């Protein structure tokens, strides 16, 4: 794992330059300037946009302000997806900066979860961590950790502290070599083509014959349409790159060979 530290750091410090513009139907006392921010790929929209809110509240009356929510080209953005996933899903083919519209009214509660406080984000994040560990270690590692360890994981994410985060996360990324790896690989394949938000199924790291599974094997089994013509993995990566609506992603606690957002492909450098 020490050799992969560079990769881990690159993933952690990935940023997306974003321009936040206030929805033109919002009621303002004077014109609102757009707000620019570098968003961390591994974090969540509602966790990193306090400054955005403050900026727009300066030109609005309190009575015109309800729960803040974000939209891109008409699509409400799900704050509970990592920012990098949102970008890759909706805007990866567009020119940077990413243009997001900010709303303070008409919260779309048929589409978006409410996010009244950061403890809701923390609960969601920890829930993902626990589910991933249920797949990797039958929850044994996460349940053996103390509350303060869980807290450190969260604080590391919230405060953008790589070392603090990974001091705890490495426990969740360990496995005994006798077992051949994690019990199952926690993965989600996000898509925008159907109501179903993502594909998540049980997938072992090793085949019954003892061969280590690759990303190609995973896709072959779970999302074969991403691999037409039985092309080898290298060709597949090119296809994934050009497909705007399919993103393979994993939670932040998976082996470092997979980025947290766009599969094995590094995000386009801004």
């Amino acid at each position, binding site marked *: 794992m020490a050799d992969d530290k560079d990769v881990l750091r690159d993933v952690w410090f990935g940023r997306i330059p974003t321009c936040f513009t206030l929805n033109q139907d919002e009621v303002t006392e004077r014109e609102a300037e757009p707000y620019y921010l570098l968003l961390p790929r591994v974090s969540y929209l509602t966790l990193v946009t306090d400054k955005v809110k403050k900026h727009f509240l300066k030109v609005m009356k309190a009575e015109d302000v309800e729960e803040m929510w974000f939209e891109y080209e008409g699509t409400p953005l*799900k704050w509970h997806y990592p920012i990098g996933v949102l970008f890759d899903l909706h805007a990866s083919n567009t020119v940077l900066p990413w243009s997001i519209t900010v709303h303070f009214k008409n919260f779309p509660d*048929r589409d978006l*979860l409410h996010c009244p*406080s950061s*403890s809701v984000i923390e*609960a969601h994040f920890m829930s993902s961590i626990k589910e991933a560990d249920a797949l990797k270690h039958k929850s044994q590692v996460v349940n053996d950790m103390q509350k303060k360890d869980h807290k450190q994981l969260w604080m590391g994410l919230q405060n953008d502290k790589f070392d603090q985060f990974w001091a705890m996360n490495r426990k969740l990324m360990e496995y005994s070599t006798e077992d051949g790896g994690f019990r199952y690989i*926690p993965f989600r394949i996000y898509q925008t083509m159907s*109501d179903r938000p993502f594909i998540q199924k049980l997938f072992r790291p090793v085949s019954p014959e003892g061969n280590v599974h690759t990303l190609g094997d995973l896709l072959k089994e779970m999302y074969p349409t991403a691999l037409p013509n039985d092309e080898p993995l290298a060709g597949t990566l090119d296809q994934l790159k050009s497909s705007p609506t399919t993103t393979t992603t994993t939670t932040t606690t998976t082996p470092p060979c997979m980025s947290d957002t766009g599969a094995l492909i590094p995000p386009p450098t801004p």
Partner: protein
Amino acid sequence: MSSSVLDEQNFHHCCRLLLQQSEQLKDGWSWEAVQGSEEGYLRKTALRSVVTDSRPVWDHEGSSSESEPHTPCHTGLDQSGLVAPVDADSIEGDIDDEEDEGEDEGACTVSEGSSQVLQYEYHIVYSCSYCTPVLYFRASTLEGKSLSLEEVWSSVHPNFRLRLQNSPLNTITLQEHPLLGQPFFMLHPCRTEEFMRPVLQAAQDQHRPVNYVLSWLSVVGPVVGLDVPLKYSTQLHPTASLSSTKPD
């Protein structure tokens, strides 16, 4: 030795059995398939008449007194704010066996509640991560206005609220439905194995068949107003009901 978890095949089998019984009992469950695949979920809608407590039910998450968020599987819920005094008559009309709970020892003051008819939609979805069924639901007024988490909490019967406080059984949170992508309330599944284990063990010891999904539902359903009539267990079914547990 039976396993206290449920694999997907057994989940489907249990659902089919439940569905058969539901049809006989006219209990309203249906199977919704996902895009013509084998996957799907059980679904049921119901009207509930509830008195919603007009008072906020708990110290909202994020209020300054809290150091611990409402993470499921931890301590459960913040004790200080959760049990709001509720008028003892705030009982849903369709749960017959709870009519006599007029004398609620815990209830202190009478609240101003308003009586409403709400539309509930319940889904039973399989979680492959936890190898258990999970209950998702949403609620709205008849005009189609969605209920908030606080409103849902205030319509949970006070006795259940008390139980949820004390046991890490489940917490109700707002989640994205894994098959539909829309916000639903969910009872967190991570403790399911714990409470199902003794049920399955007892059934195994007594050589009695048990429908995992049905037994599980009878525990979690009533918490959120989903009644599971006793007849599910007492009526004879046409097919021999096999034990749904996986023997090791």
